[in-house]
């Protein structure tokens, strides 16, 4: 059937900021879909508050609204744009839930907007547990015994009926937030209370626990003529009980016979039909009893998902793109398969390799949180690896994680040789982020597979393969370098061992191994991901490495540039860097050069085969990257864009004779090496906070004494402020040195004087080696000392003096010149008492590049790519700084709600997972939009609780006065209340928790507080103040933990009370 001509304009909802369970996979799918719809001649209107996405680039959609994805804002966009249709299935759970709310508000009906792909009934049937279960029963499929509860009083009886252990799942939440496993009534009540609160429809499902069952997923597509195909099957390495986002997963399914697989396929198709998903992709999850094959349906998502992104990357089948085309009326047999060109989308991909996805966690950022994996997702990123065998893919995946593992074991880190038997068993039994390393240790100790299976419930098939790896590890170790003959080496490489692992096992260096390998003629070959297991010729060059006979890489004789991506998402390195890499590929295309992308993150746009001319889905290690370089011989490599990952490879690549494009490796080192950096600043006459470098606790003490407390301490060479702290006294410093030195034994600890109450400023600049243009000067909302990634910021700066701004510009240009920057650079400054300090210089793309580009309309990353390839800024038309007449506010988004017992205070270690942008001509409204987009409610009236530390009392006074004037009732804890009363602000004293009831917590629970302002010293000073902050989070009460944040919030409240928010497309800001 041809595409529909009765619709012209389509609205697409994005998924907003990167949070745990909603990451860049929705930028990947959204971008694909928007492009696909535009290709068909539709006008596309997009709403997404996340500036770091490719989909919000002004040239992707026709109208791009970087506005909060709330039903109210979507309604405004609909009213303004009058789209014919809304496609709700591409923006994750956020997009789907928001679309549902918009429909329920009657907005779609009022403006005659049709919901494509999945209508309200479909979404409700798939997402509402009652309806879904009834639907499954109707088609004869089993679902686990369960009960739905809406009130806490119903919980006990339900629990008794189902029997423990019980899985608790709140309906309509993200990634199973608030869910968990209850083993007794007490745990059940606690989980249900939290779940009822989190659920959008106050509904929690209690379910028979299928702990230990095998878990599978099928990715399904349906067109309007009811043709249904399965794109990919996925088998989880971790058994039921671990959220699929936290599970290692493998594609295709490994341990199903055809009969069992077809039964699952039949069930998936029946589910698609019964739920009634009209067109597009869905994901169905199953559990299988390993003892008898009993099949149970867990859930289905009537939309593209993290798994569908993975399935797209795993098979080469672009699910989101095809879903978009199906939504406008095409059928599967009308859409060509881009990869083979001769076949159509109406087929089921066959793959001739094995794909392994491994999640990446960041428990180290939240030391108070228990490292346990359960039914609520906790990982912040993932990596995917492709190999011809499971062993190869698995080991590649392990080194792709970039956590210091060079494969499965056989490396210096993550050694658990000294672990007690009991601890080892515990580590195996309770799923956790370190379990793979415990598995390695168990295998190394020759624990029988049966026993490991009993402890972990991981299928023996997987365990057997891991054992083959550890068995070979032993053989290699015993053979030593002398015994590493061609056959053994070849086998080791086919088992996925890295050169680093072989070096470790034979007591040699990677260079030695590489040399021996070359002598033996063992080289990586590249195979194609082609959707069809080589049955048809493939045209899309999407490669992975393996150690076999035939090499399918076909290096062209065109000029090529390699872009190194950022690997798996982590806190501090995520979508922003992928955005830059994608822009590099686009820029290369504009220059007529071939782009070669190397990355290991399946969620990203950079790993879409459409983005670059060639895609190598490979680990970002020196060995893997050099192997590709030897095959492709690019003219140079771009390392500035992928964050710290490629930068860490720069030196090794440079030493191997690879041309690093842009700023030299020496300049990178000059900015990163403490001593050289100091000399550099001195030469330019620039100031930095007093500082020193310590290798021992004693050294640290004496430095701190000299420069006086408080000081900022951190290990060198880290991103995201890992292990960075503000230390107020000697005792804290001692304890820090004890733990931090473990963090980084080879690198010293850096100690800086902490500039209290200074304003922090971020600058992004671009230089061609001669001319430097400032991309933007961003003023942080929160004071210096809070990680720049966690701080909100305003562009242009709203309170810095003109003199200071020119000083900042001059300093930036001087540094760029001195470092001979070619490409991007980012500088962090602190301004205190009109004195400018340089905190940090990064001669690479920063996290703020996409935000700046969206705010100013200047595509910095693209320009930087061109500059790196020899263009001058003047040629590119960038001759002066861009002045904007609107305000753009960036706000960070935090995962605190995912981790129980974690304080929400901000500090020098980055904790945010994502960011949003609020843009408006009014700075207050821009701030308000940023807050709304970040999920913060903005109170219009009611009571505000103020409880601030001593030093903040005078600072908070104007805020309190303003709130009072705006009609808010002020509540305050004793000291703050006294201070405010003394300064004429009417307020009511409330009890701290230690002061007896009714206290703050009671008021929070009774919803008598609409906003909480609470500041505290750098660490968890008092239990009381922690409890206030945590309750605010848990009860979804807006809170501010800095005075600056509170001040901005008041500005937002004031602006909102004065003026109705309006929506405006990005394209309209730059006309």
């Amino acid at each position, binding site marked *: 059937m041809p595409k529909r001509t009765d619709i012209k304009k389509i609205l697409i909802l994005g998924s907003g900021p990167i949070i745990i369970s909603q990451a860049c996979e929705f930028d990947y799918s959204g971008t694909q879909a928007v492009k696909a719809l535009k290709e068909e001649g539709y006008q596309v209107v997009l709403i997404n508050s996340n500036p770091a996405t490719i989909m919000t680039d002004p040239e992707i959609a026709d109208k791009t609204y970087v506005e909060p994805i709330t039903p109210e804002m979507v309604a405004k966009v609909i009213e303004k744009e009058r789209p014919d249709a809304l496609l709700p299935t591409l923006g994750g759970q956020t997009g789907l839930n928001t679309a549902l709310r918009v429909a329920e508000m009657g907005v779609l009906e009022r403006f005659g907007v049709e919901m494509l792909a999945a209508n309200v009934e479909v979404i409700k049937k798939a997402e509402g547990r009652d309806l879904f279960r009834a639907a499954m029963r109707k088609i004869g499929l089993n679902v686990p015994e369960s009960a739905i509860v809406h009130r806490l009083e119903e919980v006990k009886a339900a629990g008794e009926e189902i029997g423990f252990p019980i899985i608790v799942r709140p309906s309509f939440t993200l990634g199973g937030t608030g869910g968990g496993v209850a083993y007794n009534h007490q745990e059940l009540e606690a989980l249900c209370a939290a779940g009822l609160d989190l659920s959008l429809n106050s509904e929690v499902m209690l379910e028979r626990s299928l702990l230990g069952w095998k878990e599978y997923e099928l990715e399904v597509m349906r067109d309007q003529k009811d043709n249904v195909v399965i794109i990919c099957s996925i088998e989880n390495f971790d058994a039921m009980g671990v959220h699929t986002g936290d599970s290692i997963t493998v594609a*295709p399914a490994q341990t199903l016979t055809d009969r069992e697989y077809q039964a699952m396929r039949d069930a998936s198709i029946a589910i698609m039909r019964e739920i009634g998903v009209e067109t597009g992709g869905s994901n169905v999850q199953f559990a299988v009893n390993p003892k008898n094959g009993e099949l149970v349906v867990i859930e289905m998502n009537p939309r593209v998902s993290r798994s569908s992104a993975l399935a797209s990357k795993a098979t080469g089948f672009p699910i989101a793109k095809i879903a978009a085309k199906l939504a406008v009326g095409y059928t599967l047999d009308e859409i060509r398969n881009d990869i083979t060109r001769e076949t159509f989308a*109406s*087929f*089921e991909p066959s793959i001739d390799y094995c794909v392994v996805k491994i999640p990446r966690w960041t428990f180290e950022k939240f030391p108070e949180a228990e490292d346990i994996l359960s039914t609520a997702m906790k990982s912040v990123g993932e990596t995917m690896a492709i190999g*011809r065998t499971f062993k190869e893919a698995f080991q590649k995946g392990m080194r792709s994680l970039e956590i210091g593992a060079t494969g499965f074991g056989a490396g210096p880190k993550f050694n658990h040789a000294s672990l007690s038997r009991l601890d080892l068993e515990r580590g195996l039994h309770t799923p956790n982020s370190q379990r793979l390393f415990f598995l390695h240790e168990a295998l190394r100790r020759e624990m029988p597979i049966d026993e490991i299976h009993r402890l972990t419930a991981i299928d023996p098939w997987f365990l057997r393969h891991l054992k083959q790896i550890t068995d070979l590890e032993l053989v290699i170790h015993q053979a030593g370098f002398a015994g590493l003959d061609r056959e053994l080496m070849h086998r080791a490489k086919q088992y996925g061992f890295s050169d680093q692992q072989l070096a470790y096992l034979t007591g040699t260096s990677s260079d030695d191994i590489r040399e021996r390998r070359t002598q033996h003629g063992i080289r990586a070959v590249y195979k194609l991901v082609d959707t069809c297991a*080589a049955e048809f010729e493939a045209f899309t060059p999407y490669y992975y490495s393996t150690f076999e006979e035939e090499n399918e890489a076909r290096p062209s004789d065109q000029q090529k540039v390699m872009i190194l991506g950022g690997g798996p998402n982590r806190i501090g390195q995520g979508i922003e860097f992928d955005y830059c890499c994608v822009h590099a590929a686009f820029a290369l295309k504009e220059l007529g050069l071939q782009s070669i992308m190397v990355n290991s993150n399946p969620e990203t746009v950079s790993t879409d085969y459409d983005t670059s001319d060639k895609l190598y889905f490979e680990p970002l290690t020196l060995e893997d990257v050099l192997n590709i370089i030897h095959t492709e011989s690019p003219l140079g490599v771009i390392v500035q864009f992928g964050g710290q990952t490629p930068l860490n490879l720069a030196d090794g690549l440079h030493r191997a004779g690879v041309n690093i494009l842009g700023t030299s490796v020496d300049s990178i080192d000059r900015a990163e090496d403490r001593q050289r950096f100091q000399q550099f600043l001195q030469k330019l006459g620039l100031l930095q906070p007093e500082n020193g470098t310590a290798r021992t606790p004693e050294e640290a003490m004496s430095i701190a004494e000299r420069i006086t407390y408080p000081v900022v301490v951190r290990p060198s060479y880290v991103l995201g402020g890992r292990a960075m702290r503000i230390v107020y006294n000697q005792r804290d410093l001692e304890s820090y040195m004890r733990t931090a030195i473990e963090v980084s034994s080879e690198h010293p600890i850096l100690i800086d004087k902490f500039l209290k109450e200074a304003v922090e400023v971020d600058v992004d600049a671009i230089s061609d080696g001669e001319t430097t243009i400032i991309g933007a000067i961003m003023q942080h909302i929160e004071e210096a000392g809070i990680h720049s990634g966690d701080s909100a910021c305003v562009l242009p700066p709203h309170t810095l003096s003109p003199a200071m701004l020119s000083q900042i510009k001059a300093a930036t240009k001087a540094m760029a010149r001195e470092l001979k920057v070619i490409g991007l650079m980012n500088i962090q400054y602190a301004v205190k008492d009109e004195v400018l300090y340089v905190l940090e210089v990064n001669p690479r793309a920063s996290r703020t590049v996409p935000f700046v580009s969206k705010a100013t309309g200047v595509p910095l990353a693209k320009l930087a790519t061109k500059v790196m390839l020899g263009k001058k800024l003047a040629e590119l038309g960038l001759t002066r700084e861009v002045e904007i007449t609107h305000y753009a506010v960036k706000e960070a988004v935090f995962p605190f709600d995912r981790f129980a017992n974690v304080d929400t205070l901000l500090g020098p270690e980055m904790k945010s997972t994502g960011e949003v942008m609020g843009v408006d001509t009014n700075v207050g409204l821009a701030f308000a939009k940023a807050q709304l987009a970040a999920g913060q409610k903005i109170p219009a009236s009611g009571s505000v609780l103020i409880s601030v530390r001593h030093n903040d009392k005078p600072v908070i006074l104007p805020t309190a006065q303003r709130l009072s004037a705006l009609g808010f009732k002020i509540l305050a804890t004793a000291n703050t209340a006294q201070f405010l009363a003394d300064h004429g602000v009417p307020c009511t004293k409330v009890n701290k928790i230690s002061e007896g009831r009714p206290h703050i917590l009671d008021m929070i629970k009774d919803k008598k507080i609409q906003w909480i302002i609470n500041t505290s010293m750098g660490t968890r000073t008092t239990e009381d103040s922690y409890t206030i902050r945590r309750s605010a989070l848990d009860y979804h009460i807006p809170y501010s933990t800095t005075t600056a944040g509170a001040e901005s919030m008041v500005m937002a409240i004031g602006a909102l009370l004065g003026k109705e928010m309006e929506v405006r497309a990005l394209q309209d800001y730059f006309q």
Partner: protein
Amino acid sequence: MKAIIALEDGRTFTGRSFTGPGEAVGEIVFNTGMTGYQEILTDPSYRGQIVTMTYPLIGNYGVNAADMESDAIHPGAFLVKEYNPVPSNFRSQGTLADFLRQHRVLGVEGLDTRAVTRHIRQGGALKGIVSTLDLDPASLVRRAQEWPGLVGHDMVSDVTCAAPYGWADNRPRPGTDFQTAAPGKYLVVAFDFGLKYNQLRLLTDRGCRVQVVPAQTTAREVLAMNPDGIFLSNGPGDPAGVPGVVDTMRELLGKKPIFGICLGHQILGLAYGGLTYKLKFGHRGSNQPVKDLLTGKIEITAQNHGFCVDFASLNPNEVELTHVNLNDNSVEGMRHLKYPAFSVQYHPENAPGPHDSLYLFDRFLDMMRG
């Protein structure tokens, strides 16, 4: 144990036997199914062939009695990237290696099966030899060249049943005239050109009483049983090489409803007066898209064929094209416009493969109902 695979065009590959010593000659083909190796091995259509699985990890779920599609393994040798000796599946009753050894079929692993597949895709299905006994590439290539190949040869006589049997209790029961077949409303005579048990299971499940007969059974013998319908199974090799059966089908045409699958479909094509030809490298896998031209719907099908009906050679006034392959537009199904006869090139009985095409068995029943 080292094994060498040599092709008639001189290309060789090296692997390891995981079943001990052995040797086999045949046409090298690849199957792109990611599951179902046991059903593939027991599918008689693979007689005379050496099968390469494109999916690299094989043996994962072992073998079991319920997934047998005949009582033997038919390919001469089985080539995989990595054999997995320890199965994990609740239905597993043994390992693939033991199963191959029991049937004296050579299993070879450790070769670049993707390179083999690409080679076949580019060069077409080739004659080849696999051996652990003769490791001299030159000798092997020569012997591959000397093998006569499948074209024009009758492979059916190797796999058809020696004597008639009825299908009951999910197994063959020797006997004639429906006497040993499980009861059913419709009497179906099934020509065994190398049939797969699942065809019989599906017919029986739908209320048919099934009498299986050898390929060379005459029309008179069939009509003497007065069946409600005649089923023509799949089978190996070149349809043009099977003597006599085309004439038999011509005699039966119009007498009783006929349903043909794969080789049965090709034989009907020949009986309708058409021609067949050899595809470059055939269709073998579980993901072949086929469009039913009568309904416009797409089904994902299991296929295993190297020959194909040339539709242009048929009289369009007598035969209608009903199904086409969406990958290469080849003929996947047809029906006779005058007589109650229809057939498909693919395998609606699946095993292995999707269940999208079961409706064809219902169509056969409808036809028998009249």
